[in-house]
């Protein structure tokens, strides 16, 4: 798809894993009274100049989903940048509760693979702009593009081609794709550029590149080579190795436009 890349203002998006309304996975900020408090962390990233936030709900049981709605409520009280909540959303009603609580977008993943109409239902009810589809991909010989959709945190193959799947969900109404490389996730080797590029050239909605960022110097390639519109990272920010300003400086040095931190 030939779009004017010069118009993109690259978004830097920290991702927070949340279990029962608490941030997990070793967040390590100095001066943080409570490293598990999603509101406090979100406010810090807001102050640092993050462009958006993504909360990934890894709560095991659906009985505890109300804690995630409560978290969205609390975040919306104090944080005035857009935020997305993903994980465990299986119905329009799940999405509605989070959006009414103050989330700007919801992200669906496994539930959309199980029942693709969910994407159309959320888009029809709330608009494409709040319907993010998260796609976990891995390189694979089983599918034409060489990348296969995985679910269950990258453990379960689906036989679905990543590029075909993304085209399909965009046709159904997805307004944005959060594309995570399960090959790269946690490796700190940088984004999977080949997969990101294959997806960004196939559709005309914004793509968030995710998985594999080891330093802020890995971020720009997701945009310049991968064709993504936004970059997502977790550990480099949470462990205090880099600030949002560092990330934006690196993107700027690579010739990309960012909102100054």
């Amino acid at each position, binding site marked *: 798809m*030939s*779009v*004017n890349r010069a*118009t*993109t*203002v690259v*978004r830097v998006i920290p991702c927070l894993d949340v279990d029962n309304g608490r941030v997990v996975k070793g967040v390590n900020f100095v001066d943080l009274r409570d490293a598990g408090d999603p509101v406090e962390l979100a406010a810090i990233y*807001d102050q640092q100049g993050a*462009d958006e936030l993504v909360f990934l709900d890894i709560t095991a049981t659906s009985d505890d989903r109300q804690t995630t709605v409560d978290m969205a*409520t609390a975040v*919306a*009280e104090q944080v*005035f*940048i*857009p935020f997305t909540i993903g994980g465990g959303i299986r119905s329009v009603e799940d999405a509605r509760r989070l*959006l*009414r*609580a*103050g*989330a*700007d977008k919801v992200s669906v993943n496994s539930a959309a693979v199980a029942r693709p109409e969910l994407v159309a239902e959320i888009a029809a009810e*709330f*608009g*494409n*702009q*709040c319907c993010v589809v998260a796609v976990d991909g891995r390189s694979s010989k089983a599918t034409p593009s060489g990348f296969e959709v995985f679910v269950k945190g990258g453990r379960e193959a689906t036989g679905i081609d990543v590029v075909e799947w993304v085209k399909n969900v965009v046709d159904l109404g997805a*307004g*944005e794709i959060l594309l995570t490389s399960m090959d790269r996730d946690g490796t700190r080797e940088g984004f999977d550029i080949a997969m990101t590029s294959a997806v960004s050239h196939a559709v*005309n*909605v*914004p793509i968030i590149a995710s998985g594999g960022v080891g330093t802020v110097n890995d971020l720009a390639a997701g945009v310049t080579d991968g064709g993504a*519109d*936004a970059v997502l990272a977790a550990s480099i920010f949470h462990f205090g190795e880099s600030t949002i300003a560092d990330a934006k400086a690196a993107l700027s040095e690579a010739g990309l436009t960012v*909102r*100054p931190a």
Partner: protein
Amino acid sequence: MSQTLNVAVLDYGIGNLRSAQKALQRVGANAELTADRAVIDAADAAVLPGVGNFGACMQALHSTGLARAATEFAGTGKPFLGICVGMQLLFEKSEESDEPGLGLLPGTIRLLPDTVKRPQMQWNKLCFAHLPGAGAHPLLQGLDDAWMYFVHSYSAEAGPEVIATVDYGGPVTAAVARNNVWATQFHPEKSAESGRRLLENWVDWAAANVDTGDGSRSNQKDTK
């Protein structure tokens, strides 16, 4: 401001309204989400939010009776602010839907060109120095080159009501104003400090235009 501004945020069941309410409260307004005609009529100022599909929003506005409430509120001359699709609804029509808009502002909402990604889902920088008129509109005081958060696939065509644009494959309408009806394509409630400043500008201006209680409206003026 000497008294708290009562703002009715029109709640017609669409999208995330809590953020708008919280952001208005943060700048000192008493903001209430409401579909109650009496509450709306009694308010000092009103906000028309909106996300998603233009036609779906208009249908929801009609089915809740808020299309008429919004039009009549705007007709009283009290401060009225549209946000995002809430801005688009103020116009006569949109390429997104056969459903007519409220028609408070002249013109058509048009699809962004296919040379750019749709939606525009990003922060972008306001500019208004290139527009006719002397300097910033009161809504935009202190916000030259300010960054705001946009999520939209359609935008208002160029016209005399445009008070700010952003560059997205060419100038795209970012804010409009005509008399008491002001609106932004971006989400001030999601635009961090610059969004806070814009809402503060609006609330301060609205508070200066609140009915003084003697039956007259103070400082009512045409700002464009």
